[in-house]
């Protein structure tokens, strides 16, 4: 895992004109350690943070209320009914799990491609992944309304009825894909944190913090032999996580594509779901990174280059998504199936949900084209707004796919309209606040930028070969 100084991206004199460095010059091993560690160990609790946590905690209670009432009354409190049996629960599940994908892309895939700029954003992107998967995982569990009665068909365990899950069903593939994804993301994140916990243990002043970080670091002492095994394990985890992350949204898309519903039964779904996942994930990375670098004074570590690169990834994946939409439309007509044709005409021009399709095209395809302009990519306010816009757009993508495909069944006698209730909205808003609640806690108790990987970005981290040879 040689990531760093020899690459042209770091050293300032090798940068292209107008190109921001990955790490501003002037840092040393000590200053990098102090700056990141101090946010957790020295910085007092600020009013802004406290207000943020309070609001998020309030929202978390709304979630608790919504879920409690759901368990009390059942899914009848939601807007779902036949023919639209899948509503907010699956839309939000797919949206959240997609957001998680950027974290794994940054931590694993960019590591394998030796993109060293990832070193300053991978830690909090991985945290984002974990919290997003936690929010996503809630929906399959609660959407049954009676989760304690409905686990036997999700997980293979010996139960009193002697029945087992149906392994030919994409829903079971999904259970395995998402739970594996959650586990591997947690391991990857924790393994990355071990050496930094060691640093926190040694930097902490309070005996309590020393003990907690000492326990978490598991006695890490930076031995060269340990580092070698560590790097080997870290790279292998990245190698395993790479096909995994591509498989997760593929399997999520199978939930739709393997069925026979017009609008779902299409082979373009797996690649365009994966691209859309990374698209929304990078949008969330930017939504988190832009305020973080501002409020915590991290502009020298999360530089314009990170914003620029993330915006470019968004632009590229957004174009793949646009291709996916056009192929969906093309195949609706090319298929020759009247149901497919009707589905598309109804999706785009139907009088019930036609607006949502054009809202999707506007937010997800048209507005993000502003990212072609360099000045927009480097304007943090605009970039933040475009990222929020993409998150909204990607939510509407799932809304359009789920609701417009279901609400017009093959027979007009079974047509219907889906309207979410206040409980749908409360649950969704609750998971958003839950996500930010976890994230706000995370940035105060763990180093949100990987300290040891930042050290490898410094020019002084490299062994000077010629000196070593003659010594």
């Amino acid at each position, binding site marked *: 895992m040689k990531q760093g100084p020899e690459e042209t991206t770091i050293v300032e004199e090798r940068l292209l004109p107008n190109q921001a460095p990955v790490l501003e010059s002037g840092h040393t091993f000590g200053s990098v350690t102090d700056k990141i560690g101090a946010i957790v160990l020295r910085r007092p609790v600020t009013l802004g943070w406290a207000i943020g946590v309070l609001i998020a905690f309030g929202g978390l209670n709304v979630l608790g209320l919504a879920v409690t009432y759901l368990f009390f009354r059942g899914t009848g409190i939601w807007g779902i009914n036949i023919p639209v049996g899948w509503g907010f629960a699956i839309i939000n599940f797919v949206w959240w799990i997609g957001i998680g994908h950027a974290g794994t892309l940054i931590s694993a895939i960019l590591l394998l491609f030796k993109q060293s700029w990832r070193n300053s954003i991978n830690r909090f992107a991985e945290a984002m992944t974990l919290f997003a998967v936690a929010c996503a995982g809630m929906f399959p569990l609660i959407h049954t309304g009676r989760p304690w009665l409905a686990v036997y068909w999700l997980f293979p365990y010996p139960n009193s009825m002697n029945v087992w899950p149906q*392994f030919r069903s994409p829903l079971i593939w999904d259970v395995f894909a998402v739970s594996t994804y959650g586990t591997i993301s947690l391991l990857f994140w924790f393994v990355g944190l071990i*050496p930094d916990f060691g640093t926190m243990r040694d930097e902490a002043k309070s005996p309590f913090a020393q003990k907690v970080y000492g326990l978490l670091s598991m006695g890490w002492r*930076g031995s060269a032999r340990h580092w070698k095994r*560590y790097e*080997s394990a870290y790279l*292998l*985890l990245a190698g395993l996580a790479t*096909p995994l992350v591509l498989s997760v949204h593929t399997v999520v898309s199978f939930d739709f594509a393997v069925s026979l519903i017009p609008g779902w039964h299409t082979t373009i779904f797996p690649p365009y779901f994966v691209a859309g996942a990374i698209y929304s994930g990078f949008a969330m990375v930017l939504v988190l990174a832009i305020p973080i670098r501002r409020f915590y004074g991290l502009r020298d570590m999360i530089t314009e280059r990170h914003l620029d690169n993330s915006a470019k990834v968004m632009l590229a994946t957004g174009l793949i998504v646009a291709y996916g939409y056009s192929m969906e439309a093309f195949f609706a007509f090319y298929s020759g199936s009247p149901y497919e044709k009707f589905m598309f005409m109804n999706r785009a021009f139907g009088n019930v949900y036609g607006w949502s399709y054009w809202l999707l095209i506007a937010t997800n395809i048209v507005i993000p084209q502003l990212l072609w302009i360099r000045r927009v990519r480097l304007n943090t306010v605009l970039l933040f707004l475009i990222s929020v816009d993409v998150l909204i757009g990607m939510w509407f993508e799932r809304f359009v796919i789920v609701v417009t495909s279901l609400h017009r069944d093959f027979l007009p006698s079974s047509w219907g309209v889906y309207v979410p209730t206040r409980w749908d909205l409360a649950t969704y808003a609750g998971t958003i606040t839950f996500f930010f609640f976890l994230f706000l806690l995370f940035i105060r108790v763990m180093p949100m930028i990987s300290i040891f990987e930042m050290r490898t970005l410094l020019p002084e981290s490299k062994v000077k070969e010629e000196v070593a040879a003659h010594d």
Partner: protein
Amino acid sequence: MTEAPMDPIYGMMAEFDNPTDLLAATERAYSTGYRKMDAYTPYPIEEIAEALGFHKTRVPLIVLVGAILGGMSGYLLQYWVSAISYPLNVGGRPYNSWPAFIIVTFEMTILFGGISAVVGMLALNGLPMPYHPVFNNPRFAAASRDKFFLCIEAADPKFDRVSTGTFLTGLKAVDVTEVTH
């Protein structure tokens, strides 16, 4: 170091300011014949492990075995459930519908491989380890910050309190300390 205490010690530790000096010192120590020694750095440096004569890890093998076991157990679980314990005829598909079983098999391969990577790495490293003598050196806290250490252990046959100490002092070390148990 003039009056060495007579209690047995863990080893002799030298502190360096930069990775280049540490690498040079490690290479010298290795060529002098020291083998039971370890270097401590704030971030991974590939060359140091090489200089210590530590070339191969068994982590990849553990991951391979874990991944194969995971894939096999994933497939066997599905086979046993779908073909033996609870055979269910779904639209005439065979009980052993192997194409449908590939995805869970793949996920279990990744899951077991990933867990083996982490558990294997920690086990080979002997972590978690609540106590280790190197932390007795008060300057060692900087090993997780900006300093580089080389510790030659007393268990090495060539180790001698006086001569090892002199050897380390002659290697651009900023500080040389005895590490107690």
